[in-house]
């Protein structure tokens, strides 16, 4: 299968907004934001953009304390991605245009995707 080139540019959290704004001015649309928990309990956030079926990614690596600026001032529709990442992983995103304050999903425990599933199961059972 011919796989699609999907370049990833690594950026610092402080420089994220400038790069996102550049994609916006070039006419890219936001495809998705994906958060991945890494082995050292830090998080990798990948912002994917598309124009004419070409996918480009921006990537930042952060820990739970790092404050990340919301990109909703550039892409207004990003609020669902950011609320989801904030609630499931506990990543600290500031300035979301529609902030659900931790109530987008009805969860039994806080930040369930920030830990291994075995730990999620154990925590849930303990609470019963």
């Amino acid at each position, binding site marked *: *299968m011919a*796989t*699609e080139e*999907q370049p990833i540019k690594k950026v610092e959290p402080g420089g994220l907004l400038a790069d996102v704004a550049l994609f916006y001015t070039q006419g890219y*649309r*936001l*495809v*998705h934001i*994906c958060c*991945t*928990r890494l082995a050292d309990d830090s998080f990798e956030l*990948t912002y*994917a953009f598309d124009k004419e*079926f070409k*996918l480009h990614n921006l990537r930042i690596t952060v820990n739970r304390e790092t404050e990340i600026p919301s990109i909703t001032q550039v*892409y*207004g*529709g990003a*609020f*669902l991605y950011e609320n989801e990442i904030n609630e499931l992983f506990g990543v600290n995103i500031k300035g979301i245009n*529609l902030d*659900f304050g931790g*109530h*987008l*999903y*009805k*969860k039994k425990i806080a930040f*369930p*995707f920030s830990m*291994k*599933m*075995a730990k*999620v199961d154990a925590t849930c059972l303990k609470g019963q």
Partner: protein
Amino acid sequence: MPKRTVIPFGPQHPVLPEPVHLDLVLEDEKVVEALPSIGYIHRGLEQLVEKREFPEYVYVIERTCGICSFIHGLSYCQAIEGIMNVDVPERALYLRTIGSEYSRLHSHLLILGCLADGMGFESLFMGLWKARERVVDRMEKCLGGRVIQGTCKIGGVRKDIDGEMVEEMRSELTTIEKEMKEITDVLIKDDSVQTRMKGIGSISRKDAYELGAVGPTARGSGVPLDMRMRGYAAYGKINFEPVLESAGDCYARTSVRVKELFTSANIIRQCLKKIPDGPIEAKVVGNPNGEYASRVEQPRGEAVHYAKADGTRFLQRFRVRTPTFTNIPPLVHMLKGSELADVPVIILSIDPCISCTER
């Protein structure tokens, strides 16, 4: 300033097949603000990659949705095949394309029926679902299941079709198209349907694009966004054009779906003509190591299946971004300025699938 009232809409509501909640802020009967709320059925399927080996996770991902299950399976397989550089046999690519287009027929007929029902047009609902029944019966015969198929696997497909089946499918497609033509003519040409949908829930091309609309929601506003144009599976060898409308209202989105029914039938017919002989699966050895985002066109629009693997049998991360998830911000935009009575039709016009969204 007129008095403002907040009406909670959903999660249980007669027109909503699945639970989504909206706080509608009204001035008289006009919606001035809509605040969406999801999360009633979030299942955490993405995290199950920690417990299921990557070849068997395809069964989990198919259960994300009861309508576009086949395409979820296909896209997941494509993500793993993208990481592992698997060469899928051409016959399997055609079979995957046929399965995808039957799913689209089934999904579009289903939501058009729900839309008719939401407008109180019960007989039209029955007619559309009657046509859909023939499609899901065919899916059962050639894919192995009406709702969950389990046909796609990493490296190809599990189920082949023989020459007799191809002939059956060809002749049945003519019947399906005839039935669809008769019933969708009623939907598209009926005065009361047009009154309920024309000029309702409009979104401009610019707003649709910038807010992330995909699928018929984007194409109804003239955004030429159709992942099939990327040529995944066998789409690169098929002649078709994405269906576009420009009005951006409920009627335009519905018209896109209606025209896409016939595009899908045409794609299936082309596949049946061009499908080559040969194997239907490639042998896959080893474990994936790397990352890849597979993008496909589901009936509701672009879906992204992102997989990241570290060389073990279990993926490090798997994420699905479904079309409804990204169609919610455009929906909120459409609702502002609409009449309360039009809210159900506007919601149904984006074909919301909350099961997918909550994965």
